[in-house]
């Protein structure tokens, strides 16, 4: 047997021989998931939500992030906060709704109450609790150790000593900016989004979300649909400028960028939208070029980008914008939360078009995402043959001279190198 396939390490890179292999144990072992919880989800910046989801003072949403139950909210003074959703008294989850607006939070178990800034707010008669009880914040809701944002994308970190979000995001900030800059008025999450389960390891979705190699084999029926309705536009629309490729954004983050075959509500018209939309979309495009210049404006308007922010945030700016995060509940199971992002105060007709466009590809009922889910679940099932067939191959593009192509696998290698270094001695 090839020596590279018998090493005890789970991620093996042999640059001289252009080989990159990942052990299938990484997708199946309970011990690996436990090590990921400690080495990755307890230490990396994790996406918790977008500021627009808690637009008004006293708005809140509840989220499961990094296997914790969290409250993500805006207090009476407008300060954005994230709390561990557990009563300091006996542990019950204090907020049980998915979202809402409240002046205070009250635990239903024994009635302990808290201001939306987390401060204990119950008034018990003397004799119930001593003075010490209220000291040192022991009766307050516990804040998540770190909460920081970039362009209204909010992240938490359970490691008090983590580097700043800004340093962590590294090159990804510029690409978040490219999404946040779609509209001068800012961006917002549209509606409550989609939540679904995939019976596969979470890293399969991390890989899949930035994988252009699978596009045509898996999504043939989607491209047929575009052809049938007259929405397939294969020309780049900006021949003098080619952004297609892949960029290593640092810290395990990566993005692929390519000419769009589909329409983009931000500013790329396709015939099936009708002539009346053409002028509107042209104006949006001209506005972007005016704000950002020919090159960046054209990139925002015309090109598509799939970005993974390590470990589990995907921002795909494709035929619509999806923000997607996913958490493992077992080695072979994850829960996915996916949202649509659009310009704040978007024109009704354009918003409708954006959501229509989103659903043509994305989500469990789309013409493409379900086939991705099928692929991931098939991989997971295939790993039952692991004892005999133990390694995944992620080598595509390694011998290539010059910059990587968007349908190479260098973006996954960025992910896996980071994964290996974060897991470190844990394996």
């Amino acid at each position, binding site marked *: 047997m090839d020596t590279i396939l018998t090493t005890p390490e789970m991620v093996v890179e042999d640059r001289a021989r252009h080989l990159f292999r990942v052990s299938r144990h990484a997708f199946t072992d309970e011990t690996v998931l436990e090590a990921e919880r400690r080495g990755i989800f307890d230490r990396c910046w994790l996406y918790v939500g977008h500021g627009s989801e808690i637009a008004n003072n006293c708005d809140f949403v509840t989220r499961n992030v990094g296997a914790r139950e969290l409250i993500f909210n805006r207090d009476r003074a407008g300060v954005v906060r994230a709390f561990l959703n557990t009563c300091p008294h006996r542990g019950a989850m204090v907020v049980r709704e998915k979202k809402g607006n409240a002046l205070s939070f009250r635990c239903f178990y024994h009635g302990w109450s808290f201001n939306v800034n987390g401060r204990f707010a119950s008034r018990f008669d003397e004799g119930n609790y001593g003075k010490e009880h209220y000291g040192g914040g022991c009766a307050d809701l516990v804040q998540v150790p770190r909460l920081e944002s970039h362009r209204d994308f909010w992240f938490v970190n359970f490691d008090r000593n983590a580097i700043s979000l800004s340093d962590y995001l590294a090159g990804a900030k510029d690409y978040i900016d490219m999404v946040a800059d779609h509209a001068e008025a800012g961006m917002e999450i549209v509606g409550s989004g989609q939540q679904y389960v995939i019976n596969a390891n979470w890293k399969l979705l991390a890989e899949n979300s930035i994988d252009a190699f699978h596009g045509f084999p898996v999504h043939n029926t989607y491209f047929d*649909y575009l052809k049938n309705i007259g929405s397939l536009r294969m020309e780049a629309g900006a021949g003098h400028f080619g952004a297609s490729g892949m960029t290593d954004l640092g810290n395990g983050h990566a993005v692929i960028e390519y000419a769009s075959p589909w329409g983009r509500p931000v500013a790329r018209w396709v015939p099936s939208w009708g002539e009346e939309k053409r002028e509107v979309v042209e104006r949006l495009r001209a506005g972007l070029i005016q704000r950002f210049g020919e090159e960046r404006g054209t990139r925002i308007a015309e090109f598509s980008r799939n970005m993974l922010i390590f470990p589990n945030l995907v921002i795909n700016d494709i035929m619509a914008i999806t923000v997607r995060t996913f958490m493992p509940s077992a080695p072979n199971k994850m829960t996915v939360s996916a949202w649509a992002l659009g310009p704040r105060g978007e024109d009704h007709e354009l918003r409708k078009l954006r959501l229509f466009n989103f659903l043509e590809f994305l989500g469990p009922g789309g013409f493409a995402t379900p086939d991705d889910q099928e692929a991931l679940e098939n991989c997971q099932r295939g790993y039952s043959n692991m004892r005999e067939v133990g390694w995944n191959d992620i080598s595509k593009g390694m011998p290539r001279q010059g910059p990587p192509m968007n349908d190479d696998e260098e973006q996954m290698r960025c992910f896996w190198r980071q994964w290996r270094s974060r897991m470190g001695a844990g394996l």
Partner: protein
Amino acid sequence: MNGDAGLAPALRSDPAALRGRIEDFLYFEADLLDEWKVEEWFALFAEGATYEVPPTGSDESDSASSLFYIADDYVRLRERVVRLTKKEAHSEFPRSQQRHMISNVRVIAVTDGVADVACNFVTYRAKRGVVDTYYGKHLYRIDCRTEPFRIRSKRSILSMDMLYPGKLTIIV
């Protein structure tokens, strides 16, 4: 709802007969789906009809302002059916097996021969040893003036707080 002039005389003053006809129609629809006769199923829809599945765990009801799971116009519904007939619709190849159960059929209103109908549903989907269960309420607008009846709109509201089966590749 009695006496709607748009209805055939035999149904006009007989709500039970109208509900019976509608139930027969819904059972027929369910049977077409059970048997994967999706093109015949699509033929039950009137031109310009819509098919929608709103988000789970929420009361959002306008696909123009919030993100649904499915919001098809007539053309995209046709394309959904075309896609389902292909081997490259990987999530339904090999095809899953389905059973569509309908109950609690109620005719809510009839206007100009078009009935607003609500019913409960449970749909089972089996594939590779996994059984997915979808359940909720269908809201239909059914044109009862034509023979056979035609669906003007179908909205399937899942009574699940999230999409546990993961995919929504079949027509529930």
